[in-house]
């Protein structure tokens, strides 16, 4: 077993990278689980090598179904592992057995649902209804923002009370109430008549 994960100190570190922040370099060694928890966006080649070197993808599937080179362009599968670049359009089919789990990891999907070239006969789509996905993503944000926003307002409220600015406090309390019910509609209303923003734009004018 190699190096232990710096975060949990239990599992083997499988993701190794150097972080550049404010000009300082920090080396990090994390296991899959902690890396995922940290919601890291890794440079693709490093992510890829983790996945194909036995991190995520099942090695058996790899050895069974995947040719060692692409029959069309001759790209060695090992080369793809090392560089993260495919050699030609045919590589996608040739290496499909290992690409699909990889695509699942990277895109959380492995099938195209977007535009096709106008000259391409239109595909029989087994597309998930767009409605489902369209709502799913933003709702997550809305919920997150609602709680963020409520937190922020609560802090403001505490400050306002401390400063004995009761008028502002009352306003903030109303805004927090407006955020409490989590139905998207009421939230939408709440953000539209946002107190601070209105105040802000009035101030802008007087600033001129």
């Amino acid at each position, binding site marked *: 077993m190699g190096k232990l994960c710096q975060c949990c100190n239990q599992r083997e570190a499988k993701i190794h990278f150097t972080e*550049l922040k404010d000009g300082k370099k920090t080396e990090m060694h994390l296991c899959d689980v902690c890396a995922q928890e940290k*919601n890291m*966006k890794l440079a*693709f080649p490093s992510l890829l090598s983790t996945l194909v070197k036995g991190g995520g993808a099942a090695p058996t599937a790899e050895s069974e179904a995947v040719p060692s080179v692409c029959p*069309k*362009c*001759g*790209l060695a599968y090992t080369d793809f592992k090392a*560089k*993260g*670049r*495919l*050699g*030609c*359009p045919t*590589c*996608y*089919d040739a290496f499909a057995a290992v*690409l699909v789990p*990889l*695509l699942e990891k*990277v*895109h*959380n*999907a*492995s*099938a*195209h*649902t*977007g*535009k*096709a*070239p*106008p*000259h*391409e006969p239109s*595909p029989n789509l087994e597309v998930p209804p*767009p409605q489902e*996905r*369209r709502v799913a*993503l*933003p709702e*997550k*944000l809305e919920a*997150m*923002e609602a709680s*963020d926003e409520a937190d922020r307002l609560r802090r403001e409220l505490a400050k306002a009370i401390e400063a004995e600015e009761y008028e502002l406090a009352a306003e903030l309390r109303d805004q927090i109430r407006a955020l409490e019910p989590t139905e998207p509609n009421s939230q939408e209303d709440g*953000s539209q008549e*946002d107190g*601070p*923003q*209105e*105040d*802000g*734009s009035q*101030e*802008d*004018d007087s*600033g*001129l």
Partner: protein
Amino acid sequence: MDFEDLLSQSGEWLRGSGPESDIVISSRVRLARNLADFPFLTRASDEQRQEIHRSVRDSLDALGFTENGHAYVNLDDSDELTSLFLLERHLISRELANGIGDRGVLFNQSEMLAIMVNEEDHLRIQAIRAGFQAREAYADTVDVDDGLDGRLRFAFSRRFGYLTACPTNVGTGMRASVMLHLPALVFTKQIDKVFASVTKINLAVRGFYGEGTQASGDFYQISNQVTLGVSEEDILDLLERVVPRIVTYEREVRGHLMSKEKVRLEDKVWRAFGVLQSARAISSEETMEHLSSVRLGVNLGLLDSVDIATVNELFILTQPAHLQRLKNRDLDTGERDAVRAGFIRRHLGLDEV
């Protein structure tokens, strides 16, 4: 269009117009495409590269894209300074600037449309619009995409969509991004919270010059992370839901600062303006920082002696390659800082040209 003309103008997307332009500088969409009958570039021979380049150019010619008002630059024949210059203007990517072999870029006079050939993929079609106009930028790229589709056969599979050299771009091959100016969120340290929520929903945050660059001067690019299993509409939709929220948040905090900390804010803005008007040597980083404060000041009505278009342009025109082209020679860091300071003073109207 003469390439030299570029020095005296700037991209139309920098003019400070467009929806939400106080906060959203620009919206950019790029589509990655490859020709079906050629290997991707890492496996292509020099002859194949040239052939790809030629057939793309021929098709663009046939579509009228190379008529008047367009410029074409062959980067293989160009010096490093030219590549850097185009990179600074957001006309080419870092990958194309640093690449080797036969490659080039075609762009129109407004610099809102740029078509890169032999980048990581055979084709990268890019459109930039001022303000929050991701949908319009996407429509611009589709015009080119559909136009070319009649003449070139793109690598496309029903299963995986548009096939790209790197599997992170496969599917739609689409990256839509908006450049946001978020000084108030940075100033009040709210920015990390915004990024935490944004990255959770598959959006990526990058700096002023895209991938791998640090955000500087309070500018951030937000773009879709995922290209497969989502439609182009989904990608635009996601941005259209998220960006207005960030914009509202930034405005709210600006309003708060105006009502609670106006003096501190005014002080920051005017000091920044003072430095830019009087400095005799100034680094790129310091310039970005102060221009950001001035931009905020103009948008809040604290400062009216300069317009937004001038401020926006200065972000680009004060970059190293622009200064060197202006002087027509290589400049070391010290010389650049002096030239930059003079250039800024002239643009802010204090020194005579």
